[in-house]
């Protein structure tokens, strides 16, 4: 494989997953991520993997549940309405402490909406995972290369915390072409986790994968164990990048495609004489609360930029905790913001 290839975000997600060891894909087509299942249907069978087109997203997530129960490294991908349909299944995966990776290429909503880029599934990703106290570990790449890299890492992370991991991107990142350095494809580990089902011919005790705990204290223990893993993840997996001025007046917070836009916006703002620093959470759950809290002490204002009516901003506000005003700039329904508009907004609030 040549070093640097011009591929789309969808291709990066698919090939990155394969390179990371994913061998099983269960999914249902939906724009703007169709190139992921199409890629998988062409490439997984070639290397002994399995592509199954599920009859629906409800079926897909439950196939994933079955696959994950065997210890397989499996994934699905979808876009907003499809992810909504997976909520019950996600809750079951969390309850049964099963790992998996899912991609959400977010589109404009609510309802059928459109297929334009949006970030309005932030709550669905970070607070969703259906009913109960569980959550998805959520990562938001902002370039094709980062999609490729993060999805590869998502599989071992999912296994480690025995929890679904969501890669949250959008219609722009999905169809964007950028140079991407491809690694060699790794094989998934041969040894299955101790909890996996698969017949007990090897003489072990039988394994049961289950989320039913009628006795509340037992159910609570499961929740505490899950919560414990989230805390570990907060220790180990919290990721973000910072760009811009070291002594900023304005702290800009944005993730994913918005953060890319803000990268250029803060340059424009700097040209207009306003020093900004951009904090870009890569992990949305766990959230890089501390670094935002820290900087919030030292700036005049925080500006949150997101492609929704104000979801991500709540996590930022929970981090800032009143240390300074938090301003908002968001568009929704598939409308993109431009760096020029963000810069204008920065100037306006500075």
């Amino acid at each position, binding site marked *: 494989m040549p070093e640097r290839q011009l591929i789309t975000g969808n291709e990066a997600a698919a090939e990155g997953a394969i390179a990371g060891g994913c061998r099983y894909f269960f999914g249902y087509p939906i724009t703007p991520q169709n190139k992921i299942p199409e890629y998988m249907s062409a490439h997984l069978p070639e290397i002994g993997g399995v592509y199954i087109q599920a009859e629906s997203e409800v*079926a897909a997530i*439950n196939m994933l*549940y079955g696959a994950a129960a065997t210890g397989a490294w499996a994934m699905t991908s979808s876009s907003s309405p499809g992810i909504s349909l997976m909520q019950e299944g996600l809750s079951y995966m969390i309850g049964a402490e099963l790992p998996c990776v899912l991609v959400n290429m977010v589109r404009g909503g609510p309802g059928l909406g459109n297929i334009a880029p949006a970030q309005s599934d932030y709550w669905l990703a970070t607070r969703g995972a259906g009913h109960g106290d569980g959550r998805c570990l959520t990562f938001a790449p902002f370039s094709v290369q980062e999609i490729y890299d993060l999805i590869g890492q998502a599989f071992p992370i999912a296994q480690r915390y025995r929890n679904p991991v969501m890669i949250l991107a959008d219609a722009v990142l999905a169809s964007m072409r950028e140079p991407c350095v491809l690694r060699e494809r790794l094989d998934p580990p041969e040894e299955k986790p101790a909890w996996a089902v698969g017949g007990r011919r090897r003489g072990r005790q039988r394994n049961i994968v289950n989320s039913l705990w009628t006795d509340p204290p037992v159910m609570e223990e499961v929740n505490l164990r899950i919560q414990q893993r989230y805390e570990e993840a907060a220790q180990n997996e919290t990721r973000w990048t910072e760009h811009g001025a070291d002594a900023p007046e304005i702290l800009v917070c944005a993730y994913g495609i918005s953060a890319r836009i803000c990268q250029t916006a803060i340059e424009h703002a700097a040209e207009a004489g306003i020093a900004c620093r951009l904090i870009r959470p890569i992990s949305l759950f766990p959230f890089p609360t501390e670094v935002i809290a820290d900087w919030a002490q030292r700036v005049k204002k925080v500006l949150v930029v997101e492609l929704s009516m104000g979801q991500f901003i709540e996590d930022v506000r929970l981090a800032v905790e009143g240390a300074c005003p938090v301003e908002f700039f968001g568009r929704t329904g598939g409308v993109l913001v431009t760096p020029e508009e963000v810069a204008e907004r920065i100037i306006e609030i500075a």
Partner: protein
Amino acid sequence: MNTLATTKTIQPIYTRPDSLTDVQMRYCPGCTHGIAHRLVAEVLDELDLKDRTIAIATVGCSVYAYEYFDTDAVQAAHGRGPAVATGIKRCQPDTIVFTYQGDGDLAAIGLAEVLHAAARAENFTVVFINNAVFGMTQGQMAPTTLMGQKTTTTPLGRSVEQGGYPLNICELLAQIPGVAYLARETMTSPKRVRHAKRSLKKAFQVQAAGLGFSLVELISSCPTWWHMKPLEALQWIEDVMVEQYPLKVFVDKLEQGEQAEKNL
């Protein structure tokens, strides 16, 4: 004087199947879910499949099936057993996988999943317990509830206006070429129980032979929500249910295969 010594040999002729744990089942007295469990376990024993079997418990009175079958087990979301089985079997094709599903689970919320698994010719077995009612949630109408039958959500009896017609699952599945074994049985008498076991055995054999999707529908009693004594419930199956749900082997590709071989 000659003394007469006696040797006493004790030979088990019926014992608890190895593929059941010794956990006591939580079913109501006389509920034939228990017979169905036993039959599946006996079949696993006889075919020596227990050690490579994965049982899929679904949501209904049999939700605790994972406690009863002494195999690896997965508890699945309501109606999604066939999707879960697909995921498992596709990743571990050398295992024996079966779902154990009620009529609410399979015929109401899970109808699409079971039909699509059949269409994909997924190579696992479904044990389908049709008791014409949602047992676990306290006796509401199921898709298989009979016309006129009173349930907690058809207090005046099922009518076309409010509940529509009963769904005959086997008759639907019989239309799908991915189905390799398909039969409807019941457990109302020792003879019926033996027939039921024979069909279950075939279904697992079909799976072991990799022939495709297999399903055995077992018309089962729910004395509790039918408000009947256990024996009355069996009688009602014979008198009423079997008319709506005729007992029959719909598809048997094993037999067809054997027939084909014999015809050589």
